């Protein structure tokens, strides 16, 4: 089945589910489906049972930090009674998010990959996604790793705790803005002292 057909099936069978086709720019031509996180669990069940995508191979978390967009806009302003055209630089912030990508294959039909993505609302307070471990058990450890290293909270995961770092660790090291603690052989620190 092509991705368009899969999208049609998802949107048809699950009312309200939005699935967007994300086109891949590289020669690999592996396009993906961005699924609304509200319907993530239902969509996963449909993909597994209806389309025989019984093998979830890879669960990856990706960090897309906030980006500043600077644009120059020409506006008309009245100064001293005369209308002039001035160039204004406007800075907008494109909010970042955390994204989790699932690579699905079908062992029964020897097909794949079907790439599925879900995004959180932002990187700070709304970082929950539905856990797909009840659908594919292979996501169990990989979602724990995404929680440990990125901070994505998976609702419905049977045992969500840190897996690679120790329990008292507070940072999420794989995020792009992670700053490691200063170690004593950092030359800058030594110079300061």
């Amino acid at each position, binding site marked *: 089945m092509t991705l368009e057909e899969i999208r049609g099936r998802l949107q048809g069978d699950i009312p309200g589910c939005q699935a967007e086709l994300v086109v891949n*720019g590289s020669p690999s031509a*592996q396009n993906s489906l961005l699924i609304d996180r509200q319907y993530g669990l239902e969509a996963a069940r449909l993909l597994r049972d209806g389309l025989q995508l019984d093998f979830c191979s890879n669960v990856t978390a990706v960090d897309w930090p906030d980006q500043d967009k600077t644009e120059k806009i020409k506006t008309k302003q009245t100064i001293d009674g005369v209308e002039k055209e001035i160039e204004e630089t406007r800075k907008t912030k494109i909010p970042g998010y955390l994204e989790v990508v699932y690579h699905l294959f079908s*062992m029964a039909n020897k097909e794949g990959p079907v790439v599925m993505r879900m995004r959180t609302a932002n990187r700070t307070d709304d970082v929950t996604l539905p856990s797909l471990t009840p659908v594919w058990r*292979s996501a169990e*450890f990989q979602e724990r790793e995404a929680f440990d290293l990125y901070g994505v909270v998976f609702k419905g995961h049977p045992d969500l705790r840190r897996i690679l770092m120790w329990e008292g660790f507070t940072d999420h090291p*794989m995020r792009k803005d992670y700053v490691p603690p200063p170690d004593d052989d950092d030359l800058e620190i030594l110079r300061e002292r």
Partner: protein
Amino acid sequence: MTQVAPPEAQQDNLMEISMGPQHPSTHGVFRMDVRLDGERVMRLKPVFGYLHRNHEKIAEAASYLAAIPYTDRLDYLCSMTNNWGYALAVEKLTGLTVPERAEYIRVIVAELTRLQNHAGMVGFLLQDMGASGTPLMYAFRERERVLDLFESLSGARMMCNYMRFGGVRVDCSAEWLGQTAKLVAGFNGFLDEFEQLLTGNEILMARTQGVGVLPRELAINAGITGPGLRASGVNYDLRKVDRYGVYDRFQFRVPLGEHGDVFDRYMMRVLEMRESLKILEQALRDIPAGPIMDPKARLRGLRPKAGEAYGRIESPKGELGFYLISDGSPNPYRYRVRPPSLINLTVLEDMCLGHNIADVVVILGSIDIVMGEVDR
């Protein structure tokens, strides 16, 4: 999912043992928190991260080429296949093609890697069962021969750093191919000797048959790949499914198990070694002359177009996949390794419940994990 939950009154009588991270038979720094009722396992939680070396973070700060030596150190017994998995993912990302001779060389070194990995696995499994090192000595004797070949080809015994995007780094000589052919010719004899000592052995059969059964549906749902999956009867070998490289030109069978217990997983390795020998014979016979690198390949300053790719190969442990997201810069934006050993550990608890503590070590040995890959 089978869960053996003891009645509430017995909860206090359970003994909690932490096996590892320093333990002679946990295959590296791996820890298991086990709860026992007498000798029977009631609960088992694996704990890892003791070898988490931040491979993904380092690779995102390094260029595409600089990440290749780090892939050697993922599954440190099988550096050639790790290199191939990464090279395949980058070739998918960039559209590079690999010339025929390089494809054949890749198949040859990958199957040699499979031989020495499976021999080592059987050796370590028997060591865990108490065979005190003798099968391991035999296995390492053959492994040293394969490592000699790797050293004369790539310069290093273990961390070969051999594959490049669009081909391989150096060409192999006719003399090297002759030495490989000699090794392959003698390997069947070694396997016969090995099997004669092991396969019909009473202790091996008593300790492995019926132990650690993995049902078929659970194996598929838990994402188990590699010999463990095929031991449970699922015919899924990436060399036949994806037909990457030139594997579609070789005649070989995929052995399948019936019961999914430790004995089947042991037999998978032995049978796969024999199939690897068949592939090697065909590859050594048919390897063509020609270039070993794609002429369009640029190693330094490689800037793939923005996009993503997922490339996977059948490594000796299972499906090794690399997921790369590029944003047009010389460093990968996201570099992810899909580790077969980590995902194969998902069902460790299910396989061990109800068995004795002595079986836990045997079951762990049959999954064949390498901590460099589990923790990355």
